[in-house]
């Protein structure tokens, strides 16, 4: 048995001071400096803290959600076994954990004296009840549009419903409780663990809540979510806030402080999450004082807000935007051509001009805050002359390439797809490549790019927890039409890392994998950029998180202005 170490990646739970890389800047969690302002206690008690969110949450049952807006709300109300500070795994409901050598047995030592909002006490049995509930989901509950993360982590359910189309077997074997200990057994290790235990979807709810919703059914994949997920009062968590109300028509979720919270109690009595879907409208609402903070500020707005005295703390990066060179299209099969194209693109300009503060040029297919980030990958710095030369040498002077981009979305890693597309295509054209623009709507974008129809396309990913497989594995584990290359060296490197239960060895293996990928150059990593979050001047903001896991219990109004 190896001891579960929270110090595995070099920084402990104190806020992430000393970074484990040689850089003088911590990409993931820049250190918070400056004085801690005084709290306006009266205001904190009397006035709600209103936070503008880009969208409504979908479900008050954490396991049935897979989107950030729902996570944001649930994170304040429910807790997970492990927590993430910055990108590091830190204690959550469990003070510590152990894993066996094969990574198939995970024992969690829970905190003492934790009570749910309904008064029940947390113990190993409660944890096991949650895991057993999930594993035994039936019918519509198994559909990936409800339990995407559970099936992604555990492969499947105890009894896979054929109607839901999941064919892989569940790796969850069972859970045994012993007082404050809970041991979860798996049939197979994957590198999702222990990171997966920090995922909001796997939040622990009270045993009484589980009994209360046992009869709520989701008969089919397109059934609506059961009523208990839409109204407050059924599910009890352990978090610093309790759910007070959810007014769908006002798009308003109201939380009140949980005075029995096991950790530091929340400073502000009432927190309101209010939906404003338009990003300009969110900024205007903040400026007008209608709200006290909001998420997903447009890069330009972030700058203007900072100048006007608003606080825009910079999050660490935890995502990646890349340009794919689909090798099933003839000219891109040639490594030299891919290399030439990579030299032609001025990624720094994209970062400087379009991306929010804190953005950076990516050198490999994972963001730097992740374990396994390698400083020794091959890099392709902007050099238009070299690009032209290489294209000429490769005999590809009049190259014509179709370039796809999505039209109707902004993603956290890609705040303005069209602008980024415009810049890249302008660079490519400068290198003598004829670019044929092919805009595609989002619903059609994934299938089209997956099928390999686009020689060039933009896409990216935001990580869920500290696990490189979450990035590399989904892309380069095997041959696929979306990348169109077959390189066993890359595939093997990833497989090796993914199945290595030992933390330190695994990190090294991931570095090797990253180097192999950049050698192959299946695409060009463009950038990592954090979505911006903004707060009013009289607010003490929470520690911002690369995983967007802000804890609103830290927020308070200051006496400042």
């Amino acid at each position, binding site marked *: 048995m190896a001891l579960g170490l929270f110090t595995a990646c070099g920084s402990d739970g104190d806020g992430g001071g000393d970074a484990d890389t040689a850089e003088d800047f911590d990409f993931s969690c820049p250190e918070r400096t400056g004085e801690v302002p005084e709290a306006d206690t009266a205001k904190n008690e009397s006035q709600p803290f209103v936070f503008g969110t880009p969208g409504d949450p979908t479900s008050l049952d954490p396991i049935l959600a897979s989107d950030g807006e729902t996570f944001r709300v649930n994170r304040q109300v429910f807790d997970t076994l492990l927590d993430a500070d910055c990108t590091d795994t830190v204690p959550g409901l469990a003070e510590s954990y152990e894993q066996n050598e094969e990574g198939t047995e995970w024992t969690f030592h829970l905190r003492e004296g934790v009570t749910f909002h309904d008064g029940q006490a947390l113990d190993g049995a409660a944890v096991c009840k949650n895991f057993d509930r999930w594993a035994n989901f039936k019918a519509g509950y198994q559909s990936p549009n409800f339990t995407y993360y559970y099936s992604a982590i555990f492969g499947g359910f105890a009894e896979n419903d054929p109607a839901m189309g999941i064919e892989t077997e569940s790796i969850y074997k069972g859970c045994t409780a012993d007082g404050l200990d809970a041991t979860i057994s798996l049939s197979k290790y994957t590198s999702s663990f222990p990171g997966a235990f920090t995922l909001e979807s796997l939040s622990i709810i009270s045993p009484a809540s589980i009994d209360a919703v046992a009869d709520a059914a989701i008969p089919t994949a397109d059934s609506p979510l059961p009523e208990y997920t839409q109204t407050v009062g059924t599910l009890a968590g352990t978090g610093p806030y309790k759910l007070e109300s959810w007014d769908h028509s006002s798009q308003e979720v109201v939380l009140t402080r949980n005075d029995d919270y096991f950790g530091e109690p929340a400073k502000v009595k009432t927190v309101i999450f209010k939906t404003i879907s338009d990003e300009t409208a969110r900024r205007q609402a903040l400026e007008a004082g209608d709200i006290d903070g909001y998420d997903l500020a447009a890069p330009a707005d972030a*700058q203007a807000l900072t100048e006007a005295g608003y606080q825009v703390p910079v999050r660490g990066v935890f995502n990646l935007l890349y340009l794919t060179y689909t090798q099933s299209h003839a000219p891109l099969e040639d490594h030299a051509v891919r290399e030439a194209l990579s030299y032609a693109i001025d990624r720094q300009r994209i970062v*400087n001009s379009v991306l929010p503060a804190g953005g950076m040029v990516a050198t490999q297919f994972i963001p730097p805050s992740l374990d396994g980030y390698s400083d020794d990958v091959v890099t392709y710095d902007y050099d238009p002359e070299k690009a032209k030369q290489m294209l000429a040498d490769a005999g590809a002077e009049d190259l014509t390439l179709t370039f796809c981009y999505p039209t109707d979305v902004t993603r956290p890693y890609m705040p303005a797809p069209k602008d980024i597309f415009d810049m890249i295509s302008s660079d490519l054209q400068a290198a003598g490549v004829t670019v044929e623009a092919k*805009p595609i709507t989002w619903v059609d974008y994934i299938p089209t790019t997956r099928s390999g129809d686009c020689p060039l396309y933009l896409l990216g990913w935001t990580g869920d927890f500290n696990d490189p497989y979450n990035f590399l594995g989904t892309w380069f584990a095997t041959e696929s039409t979306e990348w169109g290359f077959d390189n066993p060296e890359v595939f093997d490197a990833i497989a090796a890392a993914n199945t290595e239960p030992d933390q330190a060895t695994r990190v090294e293996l991931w570095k090797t994998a990253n180097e192999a990928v950049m050698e192959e150059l299946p695409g060009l990593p463009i950038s990592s950029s954090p979505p911006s979050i903004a707060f009013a001047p009289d607010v003490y903001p929470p520690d911002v998180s690369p995983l967007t896991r802000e804890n609103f219990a830290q927020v308070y109004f200051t006496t400042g202005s």
Partner: protein
Amino acid sequence: MTIAKIEKLDRLVEATASARDARTGSLWRQSIRRMRRSPMAITGAVIVGLFVVVAVVGPWVAPYDPTAQTWGREVFLNQNIFPGPRAENWFGLDHLGRDMFSRMIVGARQTLLVGVVATFIGFIAGAFIGGVAAAAGTFGGRWGERCEAVIMRAVDVALAIPMLLLALSVAALLGPSLRTVMIAVGVAQIPIFARLLRGSMLAQAHSDYVLAAIAIGVPKGRIVVSHILPNSLGPVIVQATLVLATAIIEAAALSYLGLGNPDPGSPEWGTMLADAQRFLSGAPQLAIYPAVGIIVTALGFTLLGEAMRESLDPRLRRQE
């Protein structure tokens, strides 16, 4: 279904048609003479004329390539740095460092193209549907009448859907492109044109000269084609002018909803305006140039259309 709306359209038709009855040949000459005195018509005509000229010669007189990110490294949209008007860029730069002035005058052509093509699609398809319905209803006997009823019910249903949503549905189907915008906005206009032409043709069909033509045994097809149709086009042409304005605005709204023309190679005002909404506080000029362009142009077509309508409407005219 939408009887009230129909009545309104039919009233317009009636009004114009009866003016036509008075003396067909010189009606247009008459109304043109009348319009020459109307400040509305003059203003409209001047705006439209100017716009068309810019649209035609735009690409040749634009000082720069409107798509080249020549000054790309001077713009920082994440820091609200958008160089404004200056000697070499009269309207300043857009968010990718392209010359705004060149984009505006080249964009005029795309904007006009969207308006004209969309209106044309609506006009042709609407006129076809309305014409067939009216012809069938008038001369097709009982089955023809049923045909007409079915066609017009379908048109009514389409009229019930707000134009923007209709356009939206079409745009969703075809995927975003300039062509889509044209088709979407055009399709959304079909029911109006169909309704209008049918009403206009029915009014003509019951007029004395058509009865006379039937009485002397002129073939039905010829009556429709050479008598009813040409005399029914008046209100439809007026509507076309007004629709041009609507089409330009609708195209902008589609862009705002993310269904507009995504092709960076062809600047178009609606897309430019929708794009610039993001920078409204930092660089309002990026939105204001195309907005003013759209508003003024739409106003031009509207003024012209309204002036035409008024000059063709005998009820309004008699008070002059």
